[in-house]
């Protein structure tokens, strides 16, 4: 049984003239990290909202087809049960702060309070995510007075503290500097190691190449390509679809066109380095 499964899913926002999602079929497996990419306005956020159960209950509109989460149709899930199964970190960090807490520490604790976790455990869990996200210096601050990047980290911390099995993460690094971005990706990697199933929307293509097990490309509401990350990025025609491709993948492709392909198509720097070192040593041996 698939963990999350979409069958012939189409969706149209209220009053919209075209479908925001068009006949999507896909099965997500447990414990994998899925990268969702595609041009602006393609429907990535809509896709996330769908999985999180906000469509159609919150936005209205017409949803056809079926979405199964852990085998149960999404319309049959209680929204509270869904909240403790799927964590959603969304694109705009400014609206993710509850606005009712006086310290960052309490802000991160809010979800746990709602889930009814006991105080000692709340303190332990919040303390540990604060460490993971390296925001020790922020815990006493007023969450309503943070910078965009700080908010993004606090929002992230607030959701991972809830320890849901599935995480839907929509552009978590849009407000972050390079250091912040690599910190967040380190954590996403760690979460995957812990067995979480992760759906990640991200424009920074090199990071997707490095961390995602599989990639989905969404364009104008359609799932135009999907598959193993290395397979998807070895198709340079994607450039014509408005999708960025990692520089390393382009390099691998150049090598192929030059008649000197790598043994396996490299899409990340470390893979390329390995291949180049290997080729180098082969030359010396000959």
């Amino acid at each position, binding site marked *: 049984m698939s963990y999350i499964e979409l069958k012939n899913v189409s969706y149209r926002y209220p009053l919209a003239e075209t479908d925001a999602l068009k006949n999507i079929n896909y099965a997500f497996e447990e414990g994998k990290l899925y990268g969702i990419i595609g041009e602006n306005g393609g429907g990535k956020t809509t896709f996330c909202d769908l999985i999180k159960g906000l469509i159609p209950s919150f936005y209205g509109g017409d949803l056809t087809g079926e979405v199964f989460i852990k085998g149960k149709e999404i319309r049959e899930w209680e929204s509270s049960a869904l*909240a403790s199964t799927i964590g959603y970190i969304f694109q705009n960090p400014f609206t993710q702060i509850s606005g009712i807490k006086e310290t960052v520490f*309490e802000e991160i604790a809010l979800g746990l309070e709602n889930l*009814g976790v006991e105080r000692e455990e709340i*303190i332990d869990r919040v303390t540990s995510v604060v460490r993971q996200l390296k925001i020790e210096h922020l*815990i006493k601050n007023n969450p*309503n007075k943070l910078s965009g990047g700080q908010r993004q980290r606090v929002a992230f911390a607030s959701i991972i503290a*809830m320890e849901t099995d599935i995480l839907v993460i929509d552009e978590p690094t849009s407000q972050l500097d390079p250091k912040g971005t690599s910190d967040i990706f380190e954590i996403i990697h760690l979460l995957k190691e812990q067995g979480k199933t992760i759906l990640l929307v991200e424009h920074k293509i090199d990071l997707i190449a490095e961390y995602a097990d599989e990639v989905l490309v969404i364009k104008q509401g359609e799932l135009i390509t999907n598959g193993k990350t290395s397979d998807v990025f070895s198709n340079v025609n994607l450039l014509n679809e408005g999708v960025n491709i990692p520089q390393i993948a382009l390099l691998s492709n150049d090598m192929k066109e030059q008649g000197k392909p790598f043994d396996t198509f490299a899409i990340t720097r470390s893979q390329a380095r390995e291949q180049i070192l290997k080729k180098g040593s082969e030359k010396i041996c000959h």
Partner: protein
Amino acid sequence: MMDETFINSYRSPQLSKNWLLNLNPLNKINIYIALGLITLFFQHWQVNVVITLVFILLAVAAGRFKSFISPFLKLGLVIGPFFFIVRAIFWPGENMIFNYGIINITQEGIDLGIQYATIMLVVCGILVLCTVTIKAEDLTYSLEKIGVPHNISFMILSSLQLIIDLKDKTNVIMDSQRSRGIETEGNVFVRIKAFVPVLSPLFLGAISGAEEKTIAMDARAFSSANPNTHLRFLRPTPALEKILVILVDILILGLIILGVVL
């Protein structure tokens, strides 16, 4: 470095050094309102003034005089005179002092105006004192403890936050107006003229923000069926505090009975 002392502060009631601030929020409100009730039974403006003074003294006792006095004066000096004028000008009475068209000032009107204006001072005193001596979250927590549903307390908290948000945003917009050379300081009319164009973006922003906030709260399991817990620690009300509140209530009840009898 993780601030362990700060984290440990959540393991016991978060008390301040001030006894008044440490009272249970509902007990504070009880005392303030009971004091306020006295005015309704005495109907003497002198009594109202005395009670207003008591509120000021309470603010001093709580170590919150500075944050109390400015909003109190701002609010009191607008609302008080307003009630005075409305009552003084339009109230019919025997002892005419001045009459011109619908304006009809009588001694009874003026007396009543003073009475109303000073009651309004008392009301403003209660409101401002609540805001400067009670943490919103402690209030809603203690309300939840006596059985008020979680979503009502959330509504209270988020509307309070909305007011703060709107105020912050107004300041930002007003600043940008000023930097574009639009007059924002000066008399009431100048201020209103500067303020009106700001209103619609402000409220539109607040409404669309509210939609996303609903999603954000949903993501934090707000609708969870489990009874929710609290990170903050509200201290169980000490016996002494209970006695104090009961004494104050009895005393005030006595005063009120006295007032009615007199």
